[in-house]
C-alpha cells in the first residue's frame, strides 16, 4: 500500500510538471538555461556542418536552413520545442524528435492504421517521411508528392487517369489519394474490412461522388445515376447483399488508380477492351465469345460489333434467366439486325415475345448467344445439318421438312419468297375486294333503309306486302 501511494504521488508530480509542456522553463531540474534558436543556429546555420561519424540511413549534413524553418508551419517555434533535450553546445547526438509530444491526437488516429503498423518496421514511414522536418507544412498544403515518396508507381498511374488529369487541369472535385483511401493517418489496408477501399465497401466510396447526378452533369459524365443502377444490378446485389468478394465492384471493371474514360483506347472499358475486362472473371464466356462472329469482328477492330456491355449493359446487368432481360435483348439484337427483327416480328415467335412470353424462340435460342456465328458459317447452329437439331430443342420430333420453315420470311419480297408473296397478294385482294363490294352495297342500302323505316313508322302496319 505504501508503495502504491508513493507511485500515485510521483504521477501527480509528473503531471503538474508536464502540463505546461513546450515551454523552456518547464524543463525539470536542468541547471543550464534552454538555448534559443539563435544559439542553435550559431553552429547549425553553417552549411558545411557535418556529423562527426556517418550514421547509416541519416544524412550527414547538420545544416538547418533558417529560411526554410521560417516558411514552415512551425515558424513560431523555437528549436528546443522539438529538440527538447538540446543544450548549446552539445557533444552527443540528439535523440530523434517525438512529434507526438505535441501532436498527441495524431497518435490515436494512427493506431490501427496501416501506416502506424508499418512504423514499427524498418523503412516504414515516420511522420517526417510525409511531412518533412524543418519544412513541415500544414495538412491542407500537402500534395500527392507526399504519398508518391513511397507509392510512386500508384501515383504515377493515377496521374494518367481521368481523376489525375482532371486534378492537373485544376478540377478540385476530382478524386485524389485521400478521396478514396481516407485521411493518411488512419489509412487502412485494402484487405481490411473496415477500409474504404475494401472490396465490399468500394461502391459506397465511389458513390461519395458518383451517386450525385449534379456532379455527373458538371463533369459531363453520361450516366448520372450510375450508383443506383449498379446497386440494383446482379453485381451490385452480389457485393452489397450477398457479400461476395468475387463479384465485380467498380474497380474490377474501371480499374482503381488507372481509371480512364471509355473513349480512351487504354481504358479498360474502351469498346475494344470490354471483352477482356469482363473475361477477367467470365473466362469461359470470353473463350466462346472470342470464337463468335461478334468476337472476331471486335478483335479485327470493327467498332459497331457488339461487346458484352451492348447486350448486358454496363451497370444494369440483370439475371439472364429472367423473362424481362430475355425479351429486351431481342430489341438489342434488332438495333443492328433491323431487317431480321422486322421479319421475326411477323411470326408467332416474334409476336408472342412482344406480349411477354419468353418460352418461344428468341434470337439467341436459334443463333446462339456468345457462340453466335454467321449463318453461312458451317459451324453455325442454323446452318445446314445443325438446323434440325436447333429446331428440335423446342420442337421435339422436328424433321428436315419442319426446318424448311423460314423464321425470317418476307412476304413483300417477290424474288425471294414467291409463294408467300402471291399468298399475300391473294389474301389482300380478297380482303379489299370483299370490303369494296359490300362496303358500297351497304352505303347504297343505308339511305334506302332509312327511308323504309320512316315510311313504315309513319304508315303504320301493312303498307308493304
Amino acid at each position: 500500500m505504501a508503495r502504491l501511494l508513493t507511485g500515485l504521488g510521483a504521477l501527480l508530480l509528473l503531471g503538474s510538471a508536464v502540463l505546461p509542456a513546450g515551454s523552456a522553463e518547464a524543463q525539470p531540474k536542468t541547471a543550464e538555461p534552454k538555448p534559443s534558436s539563435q544559439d542553435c543556429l550559431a553552429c547549425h546555420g553553417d552549411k558545411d556542418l557535418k556529423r562527426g561519424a556517418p550514421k547509416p540511413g541519416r544524412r550527414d549534413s547538420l545544416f538547418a536552413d533558417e529560411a526554410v524553418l521560417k516558411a514552415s508551419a512551425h515558424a513560431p517555434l523555437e528549436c528546443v520545442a522539438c529538440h527538447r533535450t538540446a543544450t548549446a553546445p552539445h557533444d552527443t547526438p540528439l535523440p530523434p524528435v517525438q512529434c507526438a509530444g505535441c501532436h498527441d491526437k495524431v497518435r490515436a488516429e494512427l493506431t490501427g492504421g496501416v501506416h502506424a503498423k508499418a512504423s514499427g518496421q524498418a523503412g516504414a514511414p515516420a511522420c517526417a517521411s510525409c511531412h518533412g522536418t524543418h519544412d513541415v507544412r500544414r495538412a491542407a498544403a500537402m500534395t500527392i508528392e507526399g504519398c508518391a515518396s513511397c507509392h510512386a508507381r500508384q501515383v504515377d498511374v493515377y496521374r494518367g487517369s481521368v481523376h489525375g488529369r482532371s486534378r492537373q487541369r485544376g478540377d478540385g472535385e476530382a478524386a485524389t489519394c485521400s478521396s478514396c483511401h481516407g485521411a493518411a493517418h488512419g489509412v487502412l489496408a485494402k484487405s481490411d474490412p473496415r477500409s474504404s477501399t475494401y472490396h465490399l465497401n468500394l461502391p459506397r466510396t465511389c458513390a461519395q461522388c458518383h451517386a450525385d447526378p449534379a456532379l455527373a452533369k458538371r463533369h459531363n459524365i453520361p450516366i448520372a445515376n450510375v450508383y443506383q443502377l449498379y446497386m440494383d444490378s446482379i453485381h451490385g446485389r452480389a457485393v452489397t447483399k450477398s457479400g461476395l468478394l468475387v463479384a465485380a465492384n467498380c474497380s474490377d471493371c474501371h480499374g482503381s488508380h488507372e481509371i480512364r474514360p471509355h473513349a480512351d483506347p487504354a481504358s479498360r472499358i474502351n469498346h475494344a477492351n470490354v471483352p477482356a475486362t469482363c473475361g477477367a472473371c467470365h473466362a469461359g464466356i470470353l473463350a466462346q465469345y472470342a470464337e463468335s462472329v461478334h468476337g472476331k469482328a471486335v478483335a479485327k477492330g470493327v467498332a459497331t460489333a457488339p461487346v458484352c456491355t451492348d447486350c448486358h449493359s454496363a451497370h444494369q446487368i440483370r439475371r439472364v434467366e429472367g423473362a424481362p432481360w430475355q425479351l429486351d435483348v431481342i430489341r438489342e439484337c434488332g438495333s443492328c439486325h433491323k431487317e431480321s427483327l422486322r421479319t421475326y416480328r411477323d411470326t408467332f415467335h416474334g409476336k408472342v415475345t412482344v406480349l411477354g412470353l419468353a418460352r418461344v424462340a428468341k434470337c439467341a435460342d436459334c443463333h446462339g448467344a456468345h457462340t453466335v456465328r454467321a449463318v453461312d458459317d458451317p459451324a453455325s447452329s442454323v446452318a445446314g445439318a445443325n438446323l434440325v437439331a436447333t429446331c428440335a430443342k423446342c420442337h421435339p420430333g422436328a424433321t428436315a421438312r419442319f426446318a424448311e420453315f423460314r423464321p425470317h420470311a418476307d412476304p413483300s419480297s417477290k424474288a425471294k419468297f414467291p409463294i408467300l408473296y402471291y399468298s399475300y397478294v391473294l389474301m389482300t385482294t380478297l380482303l379489299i375486294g370483299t370490303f369494296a363490294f359490300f362496303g358500297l352495297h351497304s352505303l347504297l342500302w343505308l339511305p334506302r333503309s332509312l327511308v323504309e323505316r320512316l315510311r313504315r313508322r309513319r304508315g303504320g302496319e301493312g303498307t308493304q306486302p
Partner: protein
Amino acid sequence: MSEGRYYFRFNLYHRILHGMVIVSFLGLAVTGLPLKYAQTGWGLGLSHALGGPFTAGYLHRFFAIITFSYFALHLGYVARLIILRRPGIFWGPDSMVPQPHDLVQLGQHVRYFVGLGPRPRFGRWAYWEKFDYWAVFWGVSIIGASGLLLWFPTFFALYLPGWIFNVAIIVHSDEALLAVGFIFTIHFFNCHLRPEKLPMDPVIFTGRLEEEEFRHEHPAEYDRLRAEGRLESRRADPPPRWLRNFSLVVGLSSLAVGLVLIWLIIATAIR
C-alpha cells in the same frame, strides 16, 4: 301488347349452332387479335387482361374446338337431311346454294337502292344471307385448317414442307382479319344495324318472325308457303318475355364487343 301472328324462321338446332358461332367467333377474335396487333397498346393491354399470351393462346384453342364442333354439327345436320332425302337441299327456294335468281335479285336490289325499281321479293334466303353462310363455311375451313397447321406443326411437317407454315401464318392472320371485319361491319349492318332493324334483329335468338316482318323481308317465301298451304305449319307462339330479354342482352352485348374490336382495328389501320 298487340301481338301479331308469329312464324318460325329458325329451329332450335339452328339457334343453338348460331349461339356457338357467336361465342366461339367473339372468343377467337378477342383472344387472337391481341397477337395480330401485339405491337399496339390495346393489343398488349388486351393480352394482359386475358392473363397473358400463354392463357390467351389456351383460350384461343378452346374456342377453336367449339368452332370445329359447330362445323361438325352442321355437317351432320346437312348429312341427316340428305339421308332423310329431304328435297331442296342443293337447289330450289329453301337451298343455301347460290342460284341464278340470286344474281338477278342482286341487280334488282341495287336498282332499288338508287330508286330505279321496287324492292326485290326475296325468298327464304336473300343473296347476302347466302353469302354470310358461305363466308362462314369458307372461313372456318381456311382459318381452321391453317390454325391446325400452326397448332400441330411437327405432325403436319411429316407430310408437308415447312414453308407451308409461313403460308399458314399469312392466311390465318389475313383471313381472320377478313372474317372479323366482315362480320363486325357488313353482317352487323345487313342483319342488325341497318335502320329497319336497328338496334338488332332478335330472330336468330327467338327463331320467330312477326307476320308483318315475314312479309316484308321474305315475301316470296311467305307467298309460296301460303300457296302450298304450309304457312300454318310454321305458325309459332309469340316469343316469351324471357326469350326476348335474353335476345336483347346477348345480342346487344355481342354487337358491342364486335363494334369495339372493329373500331380498334380501324383506328390502328388509319393511325
